[in-house]
């Protein structure tokens, strides 16, 4: 699973560090950051397959704003929201905005792994679909110059 990369965003450092370590221990390429701003920064230099995003981050960008930015720049990146009970409604709103799913804190790693698997699968499918579409285009219009897809 080495080629999967995950970004974890949570302001609770203890939680963040441990989760990152545990994922890394499972050979998943994982990076952890403590705020939405840092997450967006990190994503400029490195592409991630899935972002695990805490909704409630006091001070600075909250989860929903971060989600909006991520989906604007990298719509193919899947986002799994982490939420407490107080923000279930927000999570549902988040899903309408394109988040893959949400998990209630405290999470069990097994549950997270299942969700991650699903998310990877979905992303893979999406990418395959796009690739196939491009190939079709290529076959039909051999002379066409494709613009680089805007994914910075």
């Amino acid at each position, binding site marked *: 699973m080495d080629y999967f990369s995950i970004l974890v965003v949570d302001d*609770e450092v203890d939680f963040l560090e441990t989760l990152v370590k545990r994922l890394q221990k499972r050979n998943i390429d994982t990076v952890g950051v403590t705020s939405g701003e840092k997450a967006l920064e990190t994503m400029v230099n490195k592409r991630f397959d899935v972002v695990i995003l805490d909704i409630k981050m006091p001070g600075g960008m909250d989860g929903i704003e971060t989600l909006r930015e991520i989906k604007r720049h990298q719509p193919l990146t899947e986002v799994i929201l982490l939420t*407490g*009970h107080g923000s*279930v409604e927000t999570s549902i709103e988040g899903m309408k905005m394109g988040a893959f799913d949400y998990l209630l804190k*405290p*999470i069990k*790693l097994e549950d997270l792994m299942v969700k991650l698997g699903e998310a990877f699968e979905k992303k893979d499918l999406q990418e395959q679909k796009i690739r196939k579409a491009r190939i079709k285009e290529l076959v039909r219009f051999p002379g066409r110059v494709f613009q680089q897809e805007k994914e910075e």
Partner: protein
Amino acid sequence: MKERLYRSLQQKSITLTLVVSLAPLLILGATLYHQFENTCREKTREQISYRAQAQAEAIDLFLKERTAILNAMADTHTFQHMIDTQNLTRIFEVMNARAGAFVDLGIIDNTGIHRAYVGPYDLRGRNYVDQPWFNEVMIKGHYKSDVYMGFRQQPHFIIAVRRHENQQAWILRATIDPNRLEEIIRSARIGRTGDAYLVNRQGVFQTRSRFEGAVLSKANLDTRQFGGRITVIEMKDHTGEDCLYAGSWLNDNKWLLVINQQPLELLSRLFALRQMEMVIISLGVLGIVAMTIFTTRLVINRLKKTDLEMIELNAQLVQSDKLAALGKMAAGVAHEINNPLAVILQKTGWMEDLLEEEDFQNCENLDEFRKSIAKIEEHVERARKVVHNMLGYARKMEPRLEDVDVNDTIQQTITLLENHARINNIDIQVDLADSIPVIASDQAQLQQVFLNLLNNAIDAIGSNGSIDVVSRREDDRIVVRIKDDGPGLSDEMIRKIFDPFYTTKEPGKGTGLGLWVSHSIMAKMGGNIHVKNNPDRGAMFTVEVPIVIPEKK
């Protein structure tokens, strides 16, 4: 305290209403009666005065007629002609035929000797020269006497007229039957107490009085009280009652015609009216009093009921406020607890991960570590469940509207618990109304509520007992009552039963959240849930589900 307030309010209200409504009635009644009484009395006086006048005129006429006939006879016949008994008899017959009431007729010469006489007594030859009336008639030319006994020992009175003939005067004298006067007067005696009679100036009866005496006896009457032509006075009569006396002078003011009557008798109409008025007013008063008491009672009872409802409503409001505040707090607490729990769970997970590494595999306490970690995780899970429960399965808190048959939901819930109940020998009786419509509601949430209540009922009974589940439609609600025959609830339990974390079960057996969550669910649905003890035994929970008709699809 409150009871006294109601009583005082009731008294005030009754008193005020009675005063306001009775006062005008009584004042009006009294005024009308007074007015009517005055009118009646005046009318009575008028009547009696009028009667006196009419009778006096009749008697006057009677006397004048007799006098006129005597005069006419005296003027048209000579003394010589008259003293012939045969002639006189003829004249007497003519007079009686024309006018009547003449008892006898006689001629008296200027020496007072009765020269001729026609009548029942033999008066011829009697000498009247010493009688005072003889002189009076000789001087005045005419004379009417009072009633007197005279020679014949019979009450009578005479009319005499004088005639001059060739320097000689003679007198034509007739006796009048006083009974004729009485006959005229009698018609003025009205009713049981009415009387009418003639008295002379000295108050001697000239005609018989109905009650007070015979002719020529003395009347108990001061004739000087009567002046002018007709006088009406009020005084006590012989029976001591108030009596109206009307007097009219006649016969050259020699006689007084008196008509008297107790006004009470004439006022009988007034009394009948008074009686009727009394009856009407009494009935009115009775009606008003009854109505006032009835209305006031009604109002006070309604007030009591409203107050009671208000108190209940206030209690419910306080309860909902409390629960809402607790809910908010709980949500905050849940978040604060969830974060540390999340960290703990990750840390233990990390520890488990590390324990898998080779360095640790040979550690002799590896199993102990694993067990401890498992325990920590187990208790984190327990804490997590408490928080989940506390928030009532947050995902479900927003009711999802679907078509719900409440009876079906109850049946399904009971099916879930049937085994549990049977093991404990608890009989679940179901009485579901047919008239319950399908509503738009959240079946899962309703089921959770029923499940909580039924579970509690089974736990309350323990074993051997019965539970009654009844559903009814009441106005715009479906009411479900779940009744157990367990030990019932104390006042404190009833007060706190919907509070979160309030439980009477053994530690670890119940979270104390079931009823709280049920209450929140019902409140969110716009329904209600409450509890009270049965009069005999056990407790009864009542769930009110609002009837929302599903939209047609």
